[in-house]
């Protein structure tokens, strides 16, 4: 993974001191609150219901054990002993004091971490495939480009006060595990017929109040033009994005209101001016950055095949875990593992300091010292020998991190919701806990199969409910919480926005409604292998609406 050089270290240390100065000026009143706000947001500091929240960046979701241990230390020393991994591959701490945050940032800087631009109207964390560098279907590792974009976008003097936040995601495989079509810029790293690397370039995706699937505006932007083209997009957005209404300020609205052809024409015109200039990426620089991401040396471990078969026969729980949470790797003696942060009935995406330390130990001993965060609030060990799966499973089990539910109904994504967030209208976490408990038996989960439930506590959609096979949106109605159900959303290469299927449900009725939806699906699926999403796309919303709300009078007649 990327390692800081002296330039990076000088920068991040200067940034910490700059923020320390800004905090001091705010405390003394020299800096007014409304002028301080964008500055603290650009250092990841939110004010929530109960306390400040600090969002620490985990660039493209990649960390080493030293960094994971530091996060555990921060949780212990400055917070309440836990952290929350987010839908953009970052981590949030919910109880830091502003007065401690400069020190927290200084400690993070010692392990090459920061909280720069994890909030604010600027370019945010560039996210990617959690299996990058390991996945068997990967064309090329997207992370070097994510790192180049991360550097280039850091404290960009022109793009620090955009109309709104700006999110970029990049996949290096056809099967999109990075949800690129729901990002402001989505990049699909691929090869052309000559074997050269470049990007399918998408703009204008997003969730929130008005969800849009991104539009592909170029099939192949050569890798050398990545920064120049991205600059052209940002410049047009910065100049023409709406600033009159916070809910109409993302680039997706600019695309929608200007028209994609006209907007692309404007971007291309600016790009033509920049092309071939100082933003061109020299091959040598791309190679140098890519060096940091080359795969570790994988020893042959063929004994893993026989061990794996033996272990699976001996332990049903282990077998289920392998079936669900262990994923194919480029190297046949190895696998990638999902570490579930979704214990049955637990808080999705949370990890205690002890659990973080356990993950660090396991990654260091068995995982080539690498850990990933997924945008579905889980962790991943990208490289583990099959021959080490059993001891890894035991260690994860001891830490409460071996729930065999990756991609199952209990692998729920939930935003912090009204339990924490000042923007929320309703709670998300208790609902996810109830649903998880109701469907928690391994047999039920296996029977239902792949199903993504995503819960947002407000229209800002941080729980990505629009992209859930079943989405739940919490709203406030007459002072109480109510939940709307959407069906058929998806964030992979066949992205779709979920459809609202009818009036909302009170909190105590939601889980029963989910039960009804599941029963309906099980009743109409062609075979067990037909997933909920496939069945929904085949039959449409009607059977589900009828089951929930009763058949319409016309049909009943």
């Amino acid at each position, binding site marked *: 993974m990327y390692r800081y050089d002296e*330039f990076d270290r000088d920068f991040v240390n200067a940034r910490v001191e700059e923020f320390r100065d800004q905090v001091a000026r705010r405390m003394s009143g020299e800096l007014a609150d409304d002028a301080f706000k964008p500055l603290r947001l650009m250092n990841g500091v939110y004010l929530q219901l109960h306390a400040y929240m600090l969002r620490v960046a985990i660039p493209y979701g990649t960390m080493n054990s030293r960094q994971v241990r530091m996060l555990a230390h921060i949780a212990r020393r400055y917070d309440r002993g836990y952290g929350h991994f987010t839908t953009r591959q970052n981590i949030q701490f919910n109880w830091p004091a502003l007065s401690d945050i400069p020190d927290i940032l200084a400690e993070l800087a010692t392990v090459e971490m920061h909280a720069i631009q994890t909030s604010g109207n600027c370019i945010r964390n560039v996210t990617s495939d959690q299996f990058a560098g390991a996945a068997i279907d990967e064309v090329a590792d997207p992370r070097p480009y994510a790192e180049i974009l991360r550097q*280039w976008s850091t404290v960009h*003097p*022109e*793009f620090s006060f955009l109309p709104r936040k700006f999110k970029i995601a990049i996949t290096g495989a056809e099967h999109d595990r990075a949800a690129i079509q729901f990002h402001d810029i989505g990049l699909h790293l691929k090869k052309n017929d000559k074997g050269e690397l470049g990007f399918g370039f998408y703009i204008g995706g997003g969730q929130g109040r008005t969800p849009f699937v991104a539009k592909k505006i170029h099939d192949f932007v050569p890798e050398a033009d990545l920064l120049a083209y991205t600059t052209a997009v940002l410049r047009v957005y*910065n100049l023409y994005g709406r*600033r009159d209404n916070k809910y109409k300020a993302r680039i997706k609205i600019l695309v929608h209101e200007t028209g994609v052809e006209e907007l692309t024409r404007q971007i291309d015109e600016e790009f033509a001016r920049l092309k071939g200039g100082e933003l061109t990426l020299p091959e040598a620089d791309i190679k*140098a950055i890519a060096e940091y991401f080359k795969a570790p040396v994988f020893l042959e471990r063929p004994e893993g095949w026989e061990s794996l078969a033996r272990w699976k026969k001996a332990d049903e729980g282990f077998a289920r875990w392998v079936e669900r949470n262990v994923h194919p790797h480029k190297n046949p003696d190895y696998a990638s593992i999902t570490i579930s942060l979704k214990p049955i009935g637990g808080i999705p995406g949370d990890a205690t300091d002890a659990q973080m330390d356990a993950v660090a130990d396991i990654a260091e001993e068995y995982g080539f010292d690498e850990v990933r965060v997924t945008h579905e609030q889980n962790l991943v060990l990208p490289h583990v020998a099959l021959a080490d799966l059993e001891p890894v499973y035991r260690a994860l089990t001891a830490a409460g991190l071996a729930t065999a539910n990756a991609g199952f109904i209990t692998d729920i994504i939930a935003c912090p919701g009204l339990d924490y967030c000042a923007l929320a209208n309703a709670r998300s976490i208790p609902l996810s806990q109830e649903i998880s408990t109701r469907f928690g038996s391994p047999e039920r989960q296996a029977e239902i199969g792949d199903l993504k439930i995503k819960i947002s506590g407000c229209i800002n959609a941080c729980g990505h409910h629009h992209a859930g096979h079943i989405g739940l949106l919490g709203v406030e109605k007459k002072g109480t919480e109510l939940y709307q159900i959407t069906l058929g959303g998806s964030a992979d290469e066949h992205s779709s926005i979920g459809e609202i299927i009818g009036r909302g449900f009170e909190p105590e009725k939601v889980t029963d409604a989910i039960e009804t939806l599941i029963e309906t699906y099980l009743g109409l699926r062609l075979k067990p292998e037909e997933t909920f999403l496939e069945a929904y796309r085949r039959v449409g919303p009607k059977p589900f609406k009828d089951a929930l709300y009763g058949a319409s009078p016309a049909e009943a007649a």
Partner: protein
Amino acid sequence: MTRIWTEKGGFAANDPYVIETEERQAGEGEIALLPLEDFLTKAAESNDANLAVVLKPADDVRRLEPFIGRIALVAVTFPAFNDGRGFSQAVWLREKVGFTGSLRAVGDVLLDLIPHMLRTGFDSLAITNPVAIARLEAGNLPGIAEHYQPSVKPAAAGAAYSWRRRG
């Protein structure tokens, strides 16, 4: 009280540029900072040089292109510190329209924005905020020397990669 600051000269007295209002008109030896439409009218109707124009964030800088050699100063407005359009206007004025005269930031010019302004091509800042004035008088500019991207203001190459700068 608004004071004019440049990186080379610090705070200047005797700034000749005036944003005209009902109460205040440009006098002898002063130059009116004209809003875009008024500027375009004047530029078209006369051969005057040393003109000055003040742009709002939604103004299209490309409309200055035909008259660019006759403009001494363009003032770019930052109405609220979180409206960043002025930075892109500045980049286009310098790089696309080829403006080589004085580029001044006016409006809500706060201390923490100054490094961004200097990098995007502003050479002159109109500052009202007392804290900013005090810090600039003390020569205590904020900002980080390491830059991760090129910008309008020339800077030395930063170590290792083509996109980095230092200065």
